[in-house]
């Protein structure tokens, strides 16, 4: 059995010849390449689905419309009212993370989400969006006052609570995808080099089961969890306290 490599990134240092050094400016090559492949797939899918929508009939049209309708229903269920910008934000986050989790089905590519940099970036984007929308809905003064509620001593704990949201949402995605990737890597290291073991794996469909369970199934669940949690945080951030105003 080969030893398991946990951090196997090649570092690119594009700013080195400008005289800028340091670990902060190095780039993980595999992550960047897989992310651009994902973005390319999304672009192609968008063009194709636009073509389907123009035709108004057919299987493709049905698939695209039902995909959109599912997310419109989810937004209605959780937010209470439909707004196009929230729907677009949630759906694009879902598509990006789903494709990132499933990209390892293509040979020679790794999931970008098994790199902590990607998941923390997605977490920061999602949480920052909810804060911006909260400011837009309630106004800046109400937003700041929320940090000092219920009384002024709670200010540091409120700050920590908001930061813990980012940590929990990004480490959940990272842990699940990274764990799945490592388990399938261990399986491949175990059967590699022995024709008997490899053929047993293919014939008993264990090979496909490991790939599909950790690539498609777990990836789909985690992408859905990420987008639903973002939607929940959004609905908490933009809701108005109608009950209190009614009492006054």
């Amino acid at each position, binding site marked *: *059995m080969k*030893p*398991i490599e*946990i951090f196997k990134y090649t570092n690119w240092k594009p700013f080195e010849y400008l005289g800028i050094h340091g670990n902060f400016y190095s780039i993980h090559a595999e992550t960047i390449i897989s992310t651009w492949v994902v973005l390319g797939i999304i672009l192609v899918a968008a063009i194709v689905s636009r073509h389907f929508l123009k035709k108004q009939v057919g299987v493709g049209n049905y698939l695209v419309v039902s995909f959109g309708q599912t997310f419109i229903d*989810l937004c209605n*269920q*959780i937010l*209470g009212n439909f707004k196009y910008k929230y729907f677009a934000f949630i759906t694009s986050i879902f598509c990006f993370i789903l494709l990132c989790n499933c990209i390892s089905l293509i040979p020679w590519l790794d999931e970008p989400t098994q790199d902590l940099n990607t998941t923390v970036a997605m977490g920061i984007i999602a949480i920052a969006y909810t804060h911006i929308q909260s400011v837009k809905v309630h106004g800046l003064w109400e937003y700041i006052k929320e940090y000092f509620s219920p009384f002024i001593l709670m200010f540091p*704990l409120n700050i*920590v*609570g908001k930061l*813990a949201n980012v*940590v*929990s949402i990004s*480490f*959940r995605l990272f*842990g*699940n995808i*990274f*764990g*799945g990737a*490592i*388990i399938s890597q*261990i399986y491949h290291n175990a059967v590699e080099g022995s024709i008997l073991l490899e053929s047993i794996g293919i014939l008993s469909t264990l090979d496909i089961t490991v790939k599909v369970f950790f690539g498609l*199934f*777990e990836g789909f*669940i985690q992408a*859905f*969890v990420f987008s*639903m*949690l973002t939607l*929940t945080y959004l*609905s*908490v951030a933009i*809701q108005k306290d109608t009950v209190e105003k009614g009492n006054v």
Partner: protein
Amino acid sequence: MIDYSQLLHYCSIAFAVGVNSVGVGIGEGRASVAALKAINQQPSAQNAIGKVAIIGTALIETSAVLGLFTAIILFRNPLPETNALYVAIAEVGCALAIGLSGFIVGIVSSFPTEQSCYSIARQPFFSNKILNLTLLTQSIIQSPLIFSFLVLLFIKTQAATITTLADSVRYLSSGLCIGLGSIGPAIGLAIFAKNACKSIGINRHVYGKILTFSIISLAIIETPIIFALLISLVLAIISIPTTNMITTIAAMLAAGICMGLGTLFPGISSGKVASKACIQIAYRPDAHPIVSRVSMLAQGLIDTCAIYALLISLMIAILR
């Protein structure tokens, strides 16, 4: 003269696979008994009930398989000549990580299978949707196990470089943290999943609402485990000074145990809150928005306790 390093090495191999098998055995027994009782209630649905029971037991077995993987990994990497005792102590951390979480997950992941057998007995024509929900909830219950396995591999790959006792206690504490930390949230996840399956048995028209609600709730109940994972990774990565050996050992153990115990009751009570909300949605589907919102708010407040534990453990581990 006993060679303590070899004793610890083989004990941890045996612990990893033995304790997991005990948990899985209890869990599979519960699931099979529930399937038989459900067939006794509704004999015409025996095919659907049998399908759910077989898929459920296959998923319960995940923890035994991961325990076996751990035992093989530990067995194939024998102890080095120098510093053998220190590496053996780090391996005890590996065994605790997979053993504690595998034992609990093996027992509790039978709850949703059990309850969905009874639900199918009540709603025989709705078995496919109930099967979907069982599969989904049960595979989310496995995530503490995946996190523990991740920490274990971190410890195992870095264990060869240990030179001091403080380092080995650091890895032991890292494994203890994720092992203890997954007990409470795993129980909470299982209680919630059980009640989600039960509520569809009560009222099958709420399937769509329960599905989204259960995915969000399971993700929120899981939050304390993610804090425990964070502390475990921090403990496995940080570098510690070579002076003040006793103080460092005490600090490392304290950080791990603090986070591990801190997640215990937030996980359980968060699961209980969400499960009551699930049953209420089944009885009164029109109150779904307000019930789910109140439940998520309460879960957010309960998670505050886990955040306190996270803060204190980070302070102990990093600032000292």
